[in-house]
C-alpha cells in the first residue's frame, strides 16, 4: 500500500459557497479543488510540487443540481455527477451530445464519482463531456469575493491543463444554451476498449432547416493541446444542403485543421486518418436523430 500514498495536505471543508470563495482568496495557488476525485489524485501524483491544501466541495450540497429552464437552457451545478446527466430525461431529449458523452464516459464507478465540472476544469484534450459542452456552446460560471463572472467555453481552456479560472475563483455552474426543434447534436469517440480515454472524440450541434445547415458548432478532442472548435469545417457546412459530396469535402478539410500528436493511446497518423471518418459519422448520427424527431412530430 505504499506505492500510491497521497502526499500530505491539509483538507479545507467549506460549508457554503461564500466560505469556499473566502478560503480560495486566502490560500490562492496553494489550494487544489477536490470534487469527484477521479482525476485529481492521478494528476497530483505526476506533479513535482503538490499543493499543500485541498479544498473539498463535499459539504456544498447546494451545488448538486441539474436544472432545465425552458427558453434558457440547462444549468448544471458543479457537484452534478456524470451518472446524474445520464439519468436526467431532459439531457437525453434536448442535449443528445452531452447525454452520449456522459453515456460513454469512463466506467460505472467513475460515472458515479466524477462530475461534468471536474471534466472541464481538468482541461484535458481527451475529456468527453468537455467536447460535447464545447459543441453545445456552454458557459462556465465563476464565483469569487468580487462577484460572479461568466466565461464562454470557447475562451475557457487556455492550453493543456490551464484554464481561465483564476485561483481565487470557484467554478459553480455550467450553462448550456437552449435547443429547439431544428437543433440536432451528437457525440462520437474512438477507444480501444470501452473504459479507455478517447483516442479521438468529436461532437456537433447543428441548426437545420429544410436539409440546409444554418448554424454549426463542431468540437474535436485529442487533436491538439485543448479540445478544439473546427471553425473551418463549420464554415464549409453552413449555408449548404448536407449532401454526400459535402460530407466528403468536410472529411478532407478537417485534416488540415488539426494538430494531433503520438502518445500512449494512438498516433498522429491514425488520428489524422480517422478524423474525417468520425466527423462524418457524428454529423450523420446527429441528422438521423433529428429526422426521427421530425417524423415523430408529424405522426
Amino acid at each position: 500500500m505504499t506505492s500510491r500514498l497521497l502526499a500530505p495536505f491539509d483538507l479545507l471543508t467549506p460549508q457554503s459557497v461564500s466560505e469556499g470563495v473566502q478560503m480560495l482568496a486566502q490560500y490562492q495557488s496553494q489550494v487544489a479543488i477536490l470534487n469527484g476525485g477521479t482525476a485529481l489524485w492521478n494528476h497530483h501524483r505526476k506533479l513535482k510540487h503538490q499543493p499543500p491544501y485541498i479544498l473539498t466541495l463535499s459539504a456544498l450540497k447546494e451545488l448538486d443540481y441539474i436544472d432545465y429552464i425552458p427558453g434558457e437552457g440547462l444549468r448544471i451545478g458543479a457537484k452534478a455527477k456524470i451518472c446524474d446527466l445520464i439519468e436526467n430525461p431532459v439531457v437525453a431529449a434536448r442535449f443528445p451530445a452531452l447525454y452520449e458523452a456522459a453515456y460513454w464516459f469512463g466506467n460505472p464507478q467513475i460515472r458515479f464519482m466524477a462530475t461534468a465540472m471536474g471534466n472541464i476544469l481538468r482541461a484535458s484534450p481527451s475529456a468527453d463531456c468537455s467536447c460535447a459542452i464545447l459543441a453545445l456552446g456552454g458557459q462556465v460560471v465563476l464565483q469569487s469575493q468580487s462577484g460572479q463572472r461568466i466565461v464562454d467555453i470557447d475562451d475557457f481552456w487556455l492550453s493543456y491543463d490551464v484554464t481561465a479560472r483564476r485561483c481565487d475563483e470557484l467554478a459553480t455552474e455550467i450553462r448550456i444554451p437552449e435547443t429547439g426543434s431544428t437543433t440536432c447534436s451528437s457525440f462520437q469517440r474512438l477507444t480501444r476498449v470501452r473504459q479507455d480515454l478517447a483516442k479521438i472524440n468529436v461532437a456537433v450541434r447543428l441548426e437545420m432547416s429544410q436539409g440546409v445547415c444554418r448554424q454549426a458548432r463542431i468540437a474535436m478532442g485529442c487533436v491538439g493541446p485543448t479540445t478544439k472548435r473546427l471553425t473551418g469545417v463549420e464554415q464549409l457546412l453552413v449555408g449548404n444542403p448536407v449532401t454526400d459530396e459535402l460530407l466528403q469535402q468536410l472529411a478532407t478539410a478537417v485534416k488540415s485543421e488539426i494538430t494531433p500528436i503520438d502518445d500512449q493511446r494512438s498516433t498522429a497518423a491514425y488520428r489524422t486518418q480517422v478524423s474525417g471518418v468520425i466527423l462524418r459519422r457524428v454529423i450523420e448520427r446527429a441528422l438521423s436523430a433529428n429526422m426521427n424527431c421530425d417524423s415523430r412530430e408529424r405522426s
Partner: protein
Amino acid sequence: MKNRLITLSVNGRNYRLNVEVNRTLLQALRDDLKLVDVKYGCGSGECGGCSVLVEGRECINSCLTLAVEMEGRNITTIGGMMRKGELHPIQQAFIDEGAIQCGFCTPGMVMKTASILAKNPCPSEDEIRRGLEGNICRCTGYENIVRAVQTASRVMHESDIQAAGGARP
C-alpha cells in the same frame, strides 16, 4: 498534517477512527481496520478491485475516495455479504458458475454485482456487461462472470439485496 475523527459503519459495525486527511478509504479499510478482503489493484480507479458498496446500493472505488469524506456512511465489503454463516447468493453463484480463477478481482466483482442487482434485479446481458465495465478480470474472459450475475439475478429476491447492503434509500 491534520487528523480527523470520523465514524464509519462497515458491514453493520460502527467504527470510530482517527485518520489523517490524506488517507484513502481503501487504506482505512485495509490498514487501519484490517479488512483485507478489499483488494488494492491499480490504485487509480481503473481496475475496480477496491470496489465497495455505499449505503447498500452504489459502488465506488475506495482507492479514489478520502476516508474522511465517508464520515457517517454505511460501507459494505465482501466480508459483510455472508448471512447466518451462509454465503450470499451472489457469492454462491460465482462459485457455481466457476467465475473465479485467481480470485483477486472477485471481491470487487461481487460488490459491483450487488450494486447492479440492487438497481436492476433482472439485467440483460448487455446491461450486465456495461455494469461490469469498471471491474477488470485478467483470468476468466468474463463469460462465466456474466453467467454468475445472471444466475444470481435468477435466485435472488428483494430481501437478499437488502441484506447485502442494509437499508435502501
